Structure formats: C-alpha cells, structure tokens
C-alpha cells in the first residue's frame, strides 16, 4: 500500500512541486505583473480567501456534471440498445452519433441555451452532449460484437430475442460500458463548465464556469488561476471516483470470470 502510494502518487506530486517553484521563480525573476501571471503564493492566498465561493461553485458544477453523466449513462445505453437491433439502424444513425463526437461544443452550447433557456437543464444537456459518445459507442460495440458461436449456441437452443439480449448481449456489454463511462466521466465536468459559460445561473448560484467568466472579466487573475485549479481537481475527483465505482461493479459482476 505504502509502496504503491509512493510509486503512483509521489512522482506527479514531486513534478507539481518543481513546476510551482519554477513558476514562482519566473514570476519574481521577470517581475511579471500579477494581472498577467500571479505568483503561486498570491493564487493560494486568493483561493483561501474565496474558499467558500470556490467550494460552493465546485458543488454547483459537480451537480451539473453528475446529472449530465447520469443522462449519458441512461440515454447512451438506451440508444445503444436501439442501435443493436439491426445493422441497417446502425448504418443510418451512427453517422449522427459521430456528429456528437465531432461537433464543436462551443457552437452547440448557445443553441441549447436558446432552446432550453439559461439554467441548470442547459448545463446538464451540454455536459450530456459532450460525454455521451464514449458510452454510446462502447455499448454498441459490446452489444453487437458477441462471439458468433455463442450466438449460434443460443439459436440452436431456440433462444428468444429477449433471452439473447438479457443473457448474452447485455452481460457482454457491461465491461465495455464501464470502460466508456470512465472516459466520459472526465468529459462531463468539462461539459458542465462549458455549459455554465453559456447558461450560467447568474450571481445567485454561480458554478465554476460562471466564476471563471466573472474573474476574467474583472481581471482577477489570481481567482482565475484558483478556478482553473478547482476545475482540474473536480474533474480529477470525478474521474477517480468513477474508476473506483467501475472497479467495484466489475468485481461484483464478473470477477474473476472476465479474465479469461
């Protein structure tokens, strides 16, 4: 445990320390103005002073991200189930699913705000649009790419479509959906922040996205840095938490059967 910790956690922390020290030295050495690049100490002091604002904003953003994530999981899997029904459905609809992956989110977000109004639902939707694709495409692959001999086995024993779905395709897809969810989890936070850029709930309940806009508008660069740090930490926590849940789910469902 200690050994693993020192192997996985210490090196990145050491690297961070070097970067922070280097950053401090550069700011001081070139006498950079604080609105351009604040010193690490100034950022830390600002973050500490605004800790309740930052904490609250992080929670607001987290709520948007988690709802977007939930929507991605439910709708992504549901749409994948439709896609899995027939090759012609996949052929005609999958290009539009890829559209979700390639369309620049900053172009779509304003549209979503126009259609759904400024506020929480739009934030959730932007987060959903950004994070649904990995879950959808992995779920489709998991549902479709089952061993053809296993399909024949089910056919020989006159399995119904429903039996093939519940006893073969779905269990086969679970680990792939979980892998897709891990990729999506990082994207949901980004989606929520971008969503807040365009659909921020205003000064009453500001999320990190709104706080970023506000601090850059007021040239409070220390706060902006602190927001960036908070966003990163939030994304990282959601990603790590998802990884942990994924591990538990997989251990429950198919440990150790999956490692064939």
């Amino acid at each position, binding site marked *: 445990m200690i050994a693993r910790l020192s192997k996985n956690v210490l090196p990145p922390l050491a690297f961070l320390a070097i970067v922070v020290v280097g950053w401090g030295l550069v700011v001081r050495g070139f006498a950079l103005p604080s609105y351009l690049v604040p010193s690490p100490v100034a950022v830390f002091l600002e973050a500490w002073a605004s800790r309740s604002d930052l904490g609250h904003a992080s929670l607001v953003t987290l709520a948007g991200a988690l709802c977007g994530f939930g929507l991605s999981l439910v709708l992504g899997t549901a749409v994948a189930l439709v896609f899995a029904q027939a090759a012609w459905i996949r052929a005609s609809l999958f290009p539009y699913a890829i559209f979700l992956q390639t369309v620049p989110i900053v172009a779509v977000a304003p549209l979503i705000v126009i259609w759904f109004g400024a506020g929480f639902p739009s934030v959730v939707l932007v987060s959903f649009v950004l994070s649904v694709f990995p879950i959808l495409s992995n779920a489709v692959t998991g549902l479709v790419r089952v*061993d053809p*001999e*296993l399909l*024949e*086995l*089910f*056919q*020989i*024993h*006159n*399995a119904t479509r429903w*039996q093939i779905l519940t*006893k*073969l395709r779905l*269990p086969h897809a*679970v680990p792939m959906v979980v892998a897709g969810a891990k990729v999506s989890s990082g994207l949901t936070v980004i989606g929520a922040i971008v969503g807040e850029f365009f659909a921020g709930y205003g000064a009453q309940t500001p999320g990190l996205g709104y706080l970023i806009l506000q601090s850059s508008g007021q040239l409070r660069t220390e706060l902006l840095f602190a927001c960036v740090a908070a966003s990163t930490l939030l994304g990282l926590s959601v990603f790590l938490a998802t990884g942990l849940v994924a591990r538990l789910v997989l251990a429950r*469902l*198919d440990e*150790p*059967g*999956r*490692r*064939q």
Partner: protein
Amino acid sequence: MERVTRRKTNATHSHILCRVNDDNPGLIVESRQVGIRFPSGTLALHGLDLGVREGEFVSLVGPSGCGKSTFLRLVAGLLDPTEGQLTVGGMGPIHARKTSHSCGFVFQSPTLLPWRTVQENLVLPLELEGMASAARRVVAEEWLERVGLTEFAKAWPAQLSGGMRMRVSIARALASRPRILLMDEPFAALDDITRGGLQEELLRLRAEIGFTTLFVTHNVSEAVFLSDRVVVMTGRPGRIQGEVAVGFGGCRDDDLRGDAAFASKIREVAHLLKMATP
C-alpha cells in the same frame, strides 16, 4: 464384419452407393443429395448423401474447407440447404430445432459464458428452454458428477483448465438430451494428453447413456478411435468420398491405440483421404 465402402469421385453414383432407406426408422439424420450455395456464390456442399442411425457414432473427416462445419450447421438447423433433402428425426432440421431439442453442439472452443459459473453454464440450454430452476439444479448436479466437476460447480470458467472447460461444454450439450450430438473439432485445440483423456471420457459417457454423435475432426486416429463409421468427404464442394466401418465395438481403451487392427483402419481412412484431396 468390417466393411469398407470406397467410391470413385463420381457424383452421379454417390447416392446409389450410400443410399439411405425410407423404411429405416432408426435414421436420425438423413441427407439426400444435399447441397448448399452461400449467397456469396460459394458452393460448399453438393450431392451429399449420408445417414446416421440412432445410437451411432459417425466421424466426418475431409480436406479443410470442404464443408464439414457447414454440414453440422445444416443438421443443427442454423442453415437451410439449397439443394436436396435433409431430415433430422424425420423433420426438416429447422422445424426439428424449433419443435424439440434436436441438437447439442460442441464447438472447437468451449464457448462458455465467462460471467456465469460452471453450473450456470451447464444448464444454459435448459434455462433457455424454460426449465424451472429447481429442476435445473438437479440436472446440473447429475451432470457435474458425471463429468467429475462437482467441486467446480461454483467456479468461473476462467479458473478451469482447457480440458475441464471442454467437459463442461460437452455436458452442456448433452444435458438437454438432444436427438444428436454435433461436435466440430472439439479437441483440436487441446494437448495430446488432455485430448486422449477426453476421447476416453466421451466413449465412457456414450457407454453410460447412449447417444447419437456426428463428430468432425481432421485427426484420423481420433476418428477411428471414437467411431463406428468414419466418413471421408471430398474437397469443395464437399460430398462423400467413401467410408470405413470401424467395428471395434463398445469397449475401447487406450490399449486399442497400439493394436494392429487399429493401425490398419487408420491406413484405410488415410488412403481414402488421400484420394479425396486434390
């Protein structure tokens, strides 16, 4: 009474030499001039005549790509012949599959579901058929004991050796009491010792409960060791080149492999196979 039927590679005569009788009620599989052309244009089988009697163990050997797996799929009712007539238990194979448990199938890989335990895998066909779980448990216990895997009932497939997985696969195919057991090179991926053990186990199971088997292999000695009849197919489009009646009876063991009669049967099959391979 060891009878060898050899045949020239002349398709027009083949159905006469390997005729299957209408008035033979013991035929489980009856194939008359069966052929199949895939939508891709490949003619995989053409003019294939074969009868498999109740309780018989018939092996199919032939050049690779000659349509052996395709024939098993036809019998299993997974494909429909485009030529000739094929019946399983007197019905068309697809009808036979839909109305009764006509076939048990064993593939080259054990095709177990990795998220199910050994026991859950074993009774999958019965579960699909709608058998109640209490009844399934009884069948599972019976079969686990029969193939010596009782203590692995709750194990995952990944925890078993290749030979054990194949035993589960065979038990799964037999547990639903099919009219015919179809095996497609089931032991090809196993090492020699495991393969020998499984061959003997298969003979033992057959002596115990008696079932009809159509067994595809490219291993001539395996075919002779296991079968009542070894049927040799021609290259694609596959049909019957000839057959060798083995006739070693029910009690075969490892000693048979060293026997001179055994070696001579192998030579006969190998000779037919050589004629079949262009």
